[in-house]
């Protein structure tokens, strides 16, 4: 909507950027002014519960839906009016790959490949073989996992500079998931491909992501490096007697039946925990990514 008003400079532009994206379905806000920009070569894992707005954010960032307010840019171009050269640098795998289902895997890949200047036909051939996908089977007759893999081959064969995967591992078995993550990590490492992928599988994030963004109820609660998230955030537990102290800034807060309080807190600029951590009986527990995710999401 406001895309033309916020036109960015394509030279210095981030591969993918959202500025104040807001969207709602049937009166309920799905995205509430989300700002998110990907740096070239970064692998950003977008994490959140089902219905948190991950897919809507991705679709908004790619110009697949018109936001109520805010704007999105791909390589500096307004996402709603992407040029063909910009589209050729981008590959997107939707959560449910249903496109071109009347073709066989090979036909679809051959057809789509014509539109990409850097299409890697050899990669298609070898990966179809390696992933044991029958090239002459109709896409409509493949299992969801196989279709997702064919769509991933389509995305990777175009040798994109920006790869956007919406829940890419949702229909994959653990072996296929690991292969996919390896491929993504390889692309990011060797070719400098910028990757945005959404997931609710935390272990996937830890394998490949350099950064995480945590989306909760349409708001971006947290954006930081994976290692930084583990070091910077912790669970502060305060016994009932100490739980009514002055307000402590926290990402989440949960009061237990016995009156004790659990909070997710962050270190300050000097690397110190909030003062409440030194109260008698207070305890600071380190959090893994999964714990952090659960604590914030609950």
């Amino acid at each position, binding site marked *: 909507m406001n895309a033309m008003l916020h036109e960015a400079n394509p030279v210095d532009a981030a591969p993918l950027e959202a500025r104040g994206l807001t969207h709602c379905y049937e009166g309920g806000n799905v995205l509430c002014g989300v700002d998110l920009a990907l740096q070239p070569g970064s692998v950003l894992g977008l994490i959140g519960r089902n219905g948190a707005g991950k897919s809507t954010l991705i679709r908004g960032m790619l110009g697949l839906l018109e936001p109520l307010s805010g704007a999105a840019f791909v390589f500096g171009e307004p996402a709603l009016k992407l040029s063909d050269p910009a589209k050729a640098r981008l590959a997107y795998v939707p959560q449910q790959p249903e496109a071109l289902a009347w073709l066989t895997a090979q*036909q679809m890949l051959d057809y789509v490949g014509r539109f990409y200047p850097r299409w890697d036909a050899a990669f298609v051939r070898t990966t179809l073989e390696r992933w044991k996908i029958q090239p002459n089977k109709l896409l409509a007759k493949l299992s969801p996992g196989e279709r997702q893999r064919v769509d991933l081959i389509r995305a990777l064969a175009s040798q994109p500079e920006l790869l956007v995967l919406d829940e890419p591992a949702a229909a994959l078995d653990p072996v296929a998931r690991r292969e996919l993550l390896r491929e993504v990590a390889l692309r990011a490492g060797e070719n400098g491909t910028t990757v945005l992928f959404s997931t609710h599988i935390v272990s996937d994030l830890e394998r490949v992501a350099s950064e995480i963004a945590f989306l909760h109820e349409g708001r971006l609660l947290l954006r930081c490096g994976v290692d930084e998230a583990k070091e910077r955030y912790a669970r502060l537990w305060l016994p009932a007697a100490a739980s009514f102290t002055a307000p402590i800034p926290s990402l989440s807060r949960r009061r237990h039946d016995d009156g004790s309080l659990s909070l997710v807190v962050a270190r300050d600029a000097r690397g110190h925990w909030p003062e409440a951590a030194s109260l008698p009986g207070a305890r600071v527990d380190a959090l893994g990514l999964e714990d952090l995710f659960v604590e914030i999401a609950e």
Partner: protein
Amino acid sequence: MTSFLQLLMLPWMAWSQRTRRIIVWTLLVVLCPAIAGYVLLWRSAGAGPGLAHGLAVLDCLFWAAVVPRALVLANEARRLRLPVLERAAAISTVLYAALTIALPAAVVAILLAIGRRGWRAFWCQPHPVLPHG
């Protein structure tokens, strides 16, 4: 992928090979008898409306085979953010729409001209393929 021929081919290439074969055979089955009938009747007064009717049928077949596919392609290309295809499919649809209007319009114009000059005056002239005998 923007030359005239490529735009014409675009919706066809999106059909599977098997479906393309079926469409071609259907067209042949409809076209061959139509052409044969036209050749047999070509000098009779009923040939003009027959030709117009045949073209209308052909138009319908083209619309049924090509246009939905082009529209679906444009939609799929948009959903996947594929380059070129969305625009090319839209242009291809417009092109086929124009052709399906332009071709019958040309035939109608010819038939009107025939109506004015008389059917025999228009057709009963030396013909390179079927010489007047």
